[in-house]
């Protein structure tokens, strides 16, 4: 009998592995998971664009002539799109971070509450990003 148990253990033991990169597109992430991976992506995106952000700050502050250069540079549509992407990254990272801090205090940890707060994070950061977009492209 002990041998039978051994054999079953050897052949039928299930293996749990992380999903492969190629499976990512078909994987339906729960909303809290979406907020989580966007938190990571937005953080990395801002880290990678750090020199661009410092460059903009540098041009905007150094002198009146560099400020003028900054104005002209940031009036181009592509740079505006980059700034919009950075703004959304910041807003999402900010809101998801506040959610983290609240959860650190053991508030809203169960499945339903976590889902609700992830909806709030996505909604608030998207609405604010739309406001930034309207402002950037001169709607008001």
């Amino acid at each position: 009998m002990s041998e039978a148990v051994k054999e079953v253990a050897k052949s039928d033991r299930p293996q749990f592995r992380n999903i492969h990169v190629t499976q990512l597109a078909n994987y339906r992430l729960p909303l809290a998971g979406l907020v989580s991976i966007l938190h990571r992506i937005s953080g990395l995106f801002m880290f990678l664009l750090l020199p661009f952000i410092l460059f903009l700050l540098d041009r905007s502050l150094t002198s009146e002539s560099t400020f003028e250069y900054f104005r002209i540079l940031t009036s181009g549509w592509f740079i505006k799109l980059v700034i919009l992407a950075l703004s959304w990254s910041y807003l999402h990272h900010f809101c998801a971070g506040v959610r983290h801090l609240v959860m650190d205090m053991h508030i809203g940890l169960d499945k339903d509450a976590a889902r609700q707060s992830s909806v709030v994070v996505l909604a608030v950061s998207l609405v604010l990003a739309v406001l930034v977009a309207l402002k950037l492209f001169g709607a008001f």
Partner: protein
Amino acid sequence: MANNNIGPKRLVVGAHYGLKDWLAQRITAIVMAVYTIVLLLAFLTGSNFSYDGWAGLFAQQWFKMMTFVVFVALFYHAWVGVRDIWMDYVKSVSVRLALQVATILWLIACAGWAVQILWRV
């Protein structure tokens, strides 16, 4: 308390690994969040959207110092986050170490740039 950090009885396991960075990530996040609100208030209550208004804000010593502290918080925060990313996705120890060292050097360089920008105004 006995000194457990030397010799064969050195403490090599325990619950403290990562606690410091976890806490630092939270504290730096709060510092940046407060600064964001201060900056937004300064922006929304100000009416002088010219170079003079913008540079005037950064010309004040307290604002320079606060901004510098926020930059340091930002770079520490970014270090913790980016290190997490390298630890999660880069399996090769040598590549991971190289990326981590590069991240630290890069963030220190950016800190120098930030100081230059701030104290030139």
